[in-house]
């Protein structure tokens, strides 16, 4: 049977995507945490509502990618795009939806003068690192260090 899905549509995030984002995260993590996403989504909407993206398939949001441009942190004076969180509904993986969202965010980063894109990856999620390396990310001279308090 041929795939009759319409082409995916990438668009900026809005406040009505909260339910879908919470649902995607729940499918991935097994945790229902709407308050977490209400906080994060509102953060990005008030700071840069055009950069974070969602992807729709047949009118349903199946992926999200949150980020923004920052400068002046950790000695990085030049603007950098930051990818903070992303997720794709497990039923919709393998269709380059993450790449589509990343490409849209990359354009926004460039438009805002960013000269690099950065992120932090949890080493316990090799799939995430693999996806990012396939996009073109490489190890950075900056190293994440941590100390428990």
């Amino acid at each position, binding site marked *: 049977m041929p795939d009759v899905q319409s082409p995916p549509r990438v668009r900026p995030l809005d406040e009505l995507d909260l339910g879908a984002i919470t649902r995607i995260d729940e499918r991935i993590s097994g945790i229902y945490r709407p308050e977490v996403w209400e906080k994060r989504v509102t953060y990005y*909407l*008030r700071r840069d509502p055009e950069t974070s993206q969602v992807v729709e398939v047949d009118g349903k949001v199946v992926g999200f990618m949150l980020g923004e441009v920052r400068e002046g942190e950790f000695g990085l004076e030049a603007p950098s795009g930051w990818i903070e969180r992303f997720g794709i509904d497990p039923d919709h993986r393998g269709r380059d939806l993450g790449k589509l969202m990343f490409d849209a965010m990359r354009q926004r980063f460039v438009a805002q003068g960013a000269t690099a894109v950065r992120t932090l990856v949890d080493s316990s999620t090799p799939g995430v690192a693999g996806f990012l390396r396939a996009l073109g990310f490489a190890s950075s001279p900056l190293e994440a260090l941590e100390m428990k308090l």
Partner: protein
Amino acid sequence: MVKVENVTLEKKYHDAVEHWVLHNFKDYPSLLKNWNTYFPTDEQFCLCAKMELGTPDVIQIGEHKGEKKRENPDEMTPEEAHHLLAIIRAQASTEFGSIQQHNGTLERAFDDQDRYWVLRVMAEELRHGYQMLHLLLSKDWSHVSGGVTGPQMVEEILSMQTGNHVLDAFNLDYDSFIDNITFAALIDRVGKYQLTMQKVCAYKPMADSMPQMLREEAFHLAAGVVPLRRWAQKAAHGDPFVTMQAIQRAINKWFPRGLEMFGDERGGDTNVKFGFKDMKNREAQDMYIEEVRRMIRDINTRFLRARFPEYDATKAEAVLDELEATRGVHRGVKFEDLLRLPDRRFFRRKGEPAFQMVGLDGETFADAEEYLRYLAKHLNEGYVASRDVLNYAAALRKVAAGELSAAEAAKSMPKLKRVGGTCPCSKGVRWVMEDAAGAQTAAPARAG
């Protein structure tokens, strides 16, 4: 690179806006002082006009499509310029008007975060009003303003109070903090549509004003929807002070006024023809309705998941579908316990369904008194006791009795007018009710 140019009004007008703030937005200094507490690392607030650079130079829609965008009012025909001037004036009125509305119930916010989110919304609406004043003052509109100068237009706008703003939605006092939030979710959403449609405006300064206003509006919508979601969770847990019924009554109050902000369903051709907007009224209104439907479904899902934490998303949505289809009961939750989208003809006094007696679910009424009793049950008590509802009831009775047509009644709703001074500082001032024919009657004194 996305670039925005900040523009400050000439000192006397900037000072006039700051003076207006003293009377109408007393917590503005508190917002600025606590900005970094509630919005850490966010760009500091700037009371200035922000003009987007690098926007298209060519008109994208209407009978002048392909021509260079207009930079001055006299590059438009008098009819076009007059029409656009009315849009800018109305837009300015809504921005200052909404601050006055929010101000009345701000202190009743449930918590500090909600309060500071609304304060930020108010500050950004102030900036949007400032933006419109810049459009009125930076160019000469006198050839289409009937002799009214830019400074006079600014004075008129800054003297408006709740009751005599241009659009009805901005003449309704808030009855509780639920109105602050529901207004942000529903009325700012209409604002988003208007700003989006106006991005193509053939008058370039107006088009250049839209992108930054839209970015700020995105937070305003979240400042409405996110608290509504949290309140739905509280309601699901049985909070005695936060109920879905109270939220529904607020939706019933604001949704009809929001629909009317799009203009008559049959209109909007002129805006598209002149290249000022890229959609006609009904098309934009239809999209808005679907978006509000989606918002209500999202809040209802939040409610059900809070009430039944053992349900996953799929199960909660299936229950919602079941309740909507059957209007029955699921484990103690009735369909009436959830939010629903009012019929687009409900409680309307302008546009195609003006003064039709239609209930929330589209049921029709033949008797005005029966309809008014129905409305009293589905609106909050504070609003039912207001002058606005009283005036609506008087007009409805006349339409029902055949004394007025719906169109005549739509024009006859009286507005408050301030006479004897433009600044709240003025001592010699009184309020009058002015009807469409210009006749005035004294109104009870209002607090400045």
